[in-house]
């Protein structure tokens, strides 16, 4: 029973973890990218489009192979997210546009584009159905580790996920080590804290901002891909992806900009967001309908409390990057 709940929570958590890790790296460079929900939508729909093209146009069930079925959506997803990252970086870093406005416009673009393309692709199949499923790719994406079904609760809790879930955790751990232990990570943090000082030390601020934002966006985009392939089992629906993206932004605050804390944090948020559904589905307690929104409110309230708590405590390690949200122009110093 708990194992099932944990399994479901992790399925939501992995998308959050991707989104959150990507956004932490981006924010560490001083770019507050509010376009993460849009990036996740684009990551999801690009991967979906790749899989769709492969399954319906570029191969037949006989010729399809697992390698391409995994790689094509993955590459599409990374490319789509990269383009979003480049748009954001170009506007905010090169053209020094306002980050909040650019980010929100990016979210509008991503959500609109994914809804639009999703509807458009359904029309292309001529099946007349209301949805289209990329069953082949999602089958490979959902393939679990061996022994997942033989080891009882242990298998269900830890082995029963597609490979992207483990990738998410590995990326989060690497990101944590990178930010804390490497020279490049230190430079990146310097750019986010005080770009003028970093610049004076010979760090190429613009390059760091570009790379951090683009890599961050590519990681966030994978969250969208995981959602489409694993959570939604290859059926496109964009309704849940945008709220998930905002939850990932909340998670960044909750985990005080630390990717290693994002792993348990994402599972907690994932658990909270499916709790009401899980309780009513299992009839453990007869939950009144109106309790659902009250439960789903908790991640946001917890985030607000963490935000307030951190600003009251004024502990240096748990503050947002000092220059978060500010454009940098060398000649303004």
């Amino acid at each position, binding site marked *: 029973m708990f194992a099932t709940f944990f399994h479901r929570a992790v399925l939501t958590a992995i998308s959050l973890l991707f989104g959150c890790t990507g956004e932490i790296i981006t924010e560490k460079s001083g770019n507050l990218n509010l376009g993460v929900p849009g990036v996740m939508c684009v990551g999801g729909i690009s991967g979906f489009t790749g899989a769709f093209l492969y399954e319906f146009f570029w191969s037949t069930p006989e010729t399809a192979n697992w390698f391409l079925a995994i790689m094509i959506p993955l590459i599409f997803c990374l490319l789509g997210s990269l383009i979003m990252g480049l748009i954001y970086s170009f*506007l905010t870093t090169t*053209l020094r*546009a306002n980050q909040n406005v650019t980010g*929100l*416009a990016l*979210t509008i673009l991503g*959500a609109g584009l994914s809804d639009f393309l999703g509807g458009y692709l359904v029309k292309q199949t001529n099946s007349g159905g209301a949805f289209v499923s990329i069953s082949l790719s999602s089958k490979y994406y959902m393939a679990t580790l061996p022994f997942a079904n033989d080891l009882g609760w242990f298998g269900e809790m830890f082995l029963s996920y597609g490979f992207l879930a483990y990738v998410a955790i590995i990326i989060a751990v690497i990101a944590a080590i990178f930010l804390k232990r490497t020279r490049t990570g230190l430079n990146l943090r310097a750019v986010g804290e005080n770009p003028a000082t970093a610049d004076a030390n010979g760090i190429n601020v613009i390059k760091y901002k570009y790379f951090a934002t683009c890599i961050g966006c590519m990681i966030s985009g994978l969250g969208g891909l995981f959602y489409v392939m694993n959570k939604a089992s290859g059926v496109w629906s964009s309704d849940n992806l945008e709220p998930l993206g905002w939850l990932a932004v*909340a998670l960044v605050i909750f985990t005080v900009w630390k990717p290693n804390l994002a792993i348990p944090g994402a599972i907690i948020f994932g658990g909270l967001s499916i709790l009401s559904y899980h309780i009513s589905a299992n009839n453990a307690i007869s939950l009144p*309908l109106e309790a659902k929104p009250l439960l789903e409110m908790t991640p946001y309230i917890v985030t607000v409390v963490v935000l307030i708590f951190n600003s009251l405590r004024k502990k240096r390690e748990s503050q947002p990057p000092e220059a978060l949200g500010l454009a940098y122009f060398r000649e303004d110093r």
Partner: protein
Amino acid sequence: MTIMKKHKSERDPLFHVVRRTDISFGKAMLIRVLAVLAALVLCGIIIVLITGENPFEMYKYMFDGSFKTPRKFWAMLQDLALLLCVALALTPAFKMRFWNIGGEGQVLMGGLGALITMKLLGDDGAHLPHAVILPLTILAAIVFGAIWGVIPAIFKAFWNTNETLFTLMMNYIAIQIVLYFQFIWSGGSNTIPIVNAGRETSTYAGWLRLPAEIDPSFTGSTVVPSSSGFLLNIIIVAVLTVAVFFYLRNSKQGYEISVVGESENTARYIGINVKKVIIRTMIISGILCGIAGLLIVAGTDHTIDTNSARGYGFTAILVSWLAKFNPFYMILTSFLIVFLQKGSIELASKTNNIINSNFAEVLIAIIIFFIIGCEFFINYKIMFNPRKKRKEAEA
């Protein structure tokens, strides 16, 4: 070898960028218009690639979305007024560099305040007369909106809590609160029925509307008034636009807001109480958002759901920013956005949903990117370095 390499990297670049403040208004406007035109051309190309049809035909359909019939025109004005109202609400905070992205939540809470009063005091509850309910409805909307706005402001003022993230979270808390009321007041259907209407003896208590002698289209017997039935909303927003313009430009408080926005240290130095200004401005911002909620719930919808704010809390940020925080320009920018939204809905029906109505968001985003991008050329000047000088530096 190393010396040569170093030398090469120190070569003068092709151009450098300097800030400029002296650009004339006409020239700045010209750059913006060119950017919008460039964006429209790009959008046209995209539309042609997708549909393979004449782009001018498509733009004509988009035009029809707002202007084809008087009813469409009034519906467009109605949405324009609501979007403008939210943008007006956010503007004082933005001028103070307080990034209030919680408009969505503040509008929803204002609307919820109005709905609760109408529901509890109206025909479903205490049966009070219209003249008593209406002021209380207005008051409730304003208070709810102000509370939702002032909470992040207090924390910002005293403990410097990040307001962007705080207000963002408040949106989702508000959405869930509205969902809660949707569940308890819908009787299982998930939509709250129109308040104070639909019965033989209905009084329409708490509804914002013009008296029947001024607005003959609204007789009180129809739930959905005809074309000009929402005129009151438009009048209220027009008055607010003028009020906010003069508040920001001519009042002492407006001056304080712009000083705090320019530099908090300067503000402190000349004796402005920065904490007070932050809190007061966010109360005003919240009140105006509450009024937007009031116009939506008491003015048009007479019910509420999580989409009642129509995403305007976010869109209004773009409206306000694109207009450089000037209330009168905001009329234009909100028209641009509403026009695109209405146009895309029309386009969707004309192209048999090959282009669905979500396409508006793509068009809006592209146009915004172009406008955001062109601001660079207004604020900065690109100076090409003379070629001779570069040669000298290379030598």
